[in-house]
């Protein structure tokens, strides 16, 4: 029940942003959705803290718990986005991802992992934290990229309607794509290095067929490809936005496929 509260608050914040989009933004700051988002993150922190207190472990292992932590990192990233005033409205693109992830966590059940707790060391926490930050960075890039394409379309179509007025400027969205991609890439790279070291040290090597290894490597390759698509040239920004959206979609779809085909109870997400 306690994990439902942040979900409802995230959904309410998304609703408030959508209301602002539909009713037409004003020059006043969008305080209500910002407050709602902050409340959601605080409630999420309390819920995860309660998990830690109740089960004596961090909610990093097991699908429900790990997804909730991933959503929480998304909430933290949202707070950073909201602090960048001009880019705050990127939240309308990022919040659906956070809502879906937390919703999935609640549906799957946020329970302690049946796996041994020897995975709870600082290195593991750092690895998972960095990986989550990597995926959320990619999510930001994807959300900003999607909004970039919408704004680009509005400007090209000379239709200066609700989306045009609501969305941040193209250059701001492009900057968010860049920041999201670099944050995602560097965090995920570090997370993979940590995982590789841990595997070599304690398991004698990396299991190439492990679905989570496959997914992590694929995510890293996709992120790297998206970054390469943004090398200086004509259409760089536009191409980068498309690549971010497409790349993130590939990562999410791959996860779902792996989850539905080979993932089991112990699967980390």
């Amino acid at each position, binding site marked *: 029940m306690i994990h439902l509260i942040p979900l409802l608050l995230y959904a309410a914040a998304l609703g408030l942003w959508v209301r602002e989009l539909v009713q037409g933004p004003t020059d006043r700051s969008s305080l209500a959705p910002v407050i709602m988002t902050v409340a959601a993150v605080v409630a999420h922190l309390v819920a995860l803290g309660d998990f830690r207190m109740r089960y004596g472990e961090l909610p990093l292992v097991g699908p429900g718990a790990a997804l909730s932590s991933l959503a929480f990192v998304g909430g933290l990233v949202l707070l950073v986005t909201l602090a960048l005033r001009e880019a705050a409205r990127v939240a309308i693109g990022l919040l659906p991802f956070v809502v879906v992830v937390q919703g999935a966590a609640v549906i799957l059940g946020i329970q302690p992992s049946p796996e041994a707790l020897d995975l709870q060391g600082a290195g593991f926490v750092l690895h998972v934290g960095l990986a989550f930050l990597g995926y959320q960075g990619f999510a930001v890039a994807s959300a900003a990229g999607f909004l970039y394409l919408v704004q680009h379309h509005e400007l090209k179509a*000379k239709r*200066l309607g609700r989306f*045009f007025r609501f969305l941040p*400027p193209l*250059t701001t969205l492009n900057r968010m794509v860049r920041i999201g991609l670099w944050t995602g890439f560097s965090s995920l790279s570090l997370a993979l290095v940590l995982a590789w070291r841990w595997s070599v040290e304690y398991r004698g090597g990396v299991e190439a067929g492990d679905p989570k290894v496959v997914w992590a490597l694929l995510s890293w390759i996709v992120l790297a490809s998206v970054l390469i698509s943004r090398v*200086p*040239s*004509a259409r760089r920004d536009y191409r980068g936005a498309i690549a971010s959206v497409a790349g993130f979609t590939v990562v999410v779809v791959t996860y779902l496929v792996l989850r539905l085909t080979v993932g089991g109870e112990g699967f980390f997400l």
Partner: protein
Amino acid sequence: MQPRMPLALVGVSHHTAPVDVRERLAFTPDEAERVLATLREHAGVREAVLLSTCNRTEVYLFPGVRERLIPAITELLGRKAGKLERGLDDYLFEQWGDGVVRHLFQVCSGLDSLVIGEAEIQGQVREAYERAGAIGVDPPLAGPVMNRLFQMALSVGGQVRSRTSIGEGAASVASVSVELARKIFGTLRGKRVLILGAGQTGELIVDALRRDGAESIVVANRTHDRAVELARRVRGEALAFDRLSEGLARADIVLSATAAPGPIVTGELFAEAFPGGVGGPLLMIDIAIPRDIEPALGSASGVFLYNVDDLRRIVDDRVRVREGALPEADRLIRAQAREFSSWYASLEVVPVIRKMREQGEMLRKTELDRLLRGLQHLADDDLEKVEEFSRRLMNKLLHEPTARLRNEMDHGEGPGMLEAVRFLYGLETERRERGVRMTRPSPDPVDRNKPLGWGRTKEEGR
């Protein structure tokens, strides 16, 4: 019956006078000060504010007695305007009482502006009001009535803008251009603007871009001398026309407004400027007719090309949105105007209540003295009780009518009742004693919609 407030407004606006008349009636702050001082001296005016903008010159006055006011203002404005093709009377409009309040609220909300909902007027009204208050005369020209009126007007203007879509989006070619630039680049600081020719609209756009932070402005023209001249006007640099592709390659924003018979920025020139395609976004605004920029360039990646029809269509859409907000804005204004009337009426109720009480107290004392003369045998305690009884009786008798009168005045329904109370309690003399300060002008001001023969009313001007 709602008594009229002795508020008056006389002036010209874009509804009643063409620009050549309005510009003759534009007042500098010093001139405004002199006019207001003269009106106080010769027209029995206590409070006055003069609002002078490019779209209007309006004098707000309190109290305004038509017989004294109109000749004085006509003379003052006539002196300022000089000789006009038609008589000044043909351009003037006037408002009285509640009409003045509604008009000022509409002006401050941008409803009476040339471009509906424009926000600049609010600052201009504030300046006019503050300027009147700063004039060193005693009592100040922005006295209690003008203070309340203008402060409410500024507040109403803010409410109308925040609660309705009256100010939504940019509504001129120049401001739409800036909005486009902002939505592409975010900040315009450091952005480079290339100008090809420029008419009046072009210069307005450049001004607006510069106000928003655009710093580097380069002007190119087939005739280099004209480029130099234009560059001087827009505080930019002239560029030799044969280096146009170079200027194009460096620009973030291109503004084109030449009188050339055909396109200047062609596909060929564009390819020369951007051999590998456009790197960052490029906003191109073509307000020339015939067009200066080949339309096909608009489909190039990273290029956002807007011609004059695109910009006008956007402006028209915005104006339609703003017009849709008029009924709601009008409702807000009417409600606030009623509140002002109630406040003004409350100024009248206080002396009436005071007089009622004074009269009651006088009666109480007279009758008590008469009674006590026949009750000399009573002890002091008993006499005090009798006096206390008389005081309580009077308070109770007056409490209900006083409370109801205040309540009705607060809700804007009381003026008729005030007249009745004056009549019933025999207080008519009170109004005459207070004279012009608190009462309506005598004789009553004319109906603002009645043809006057000396000027058009606002309604007629529309």
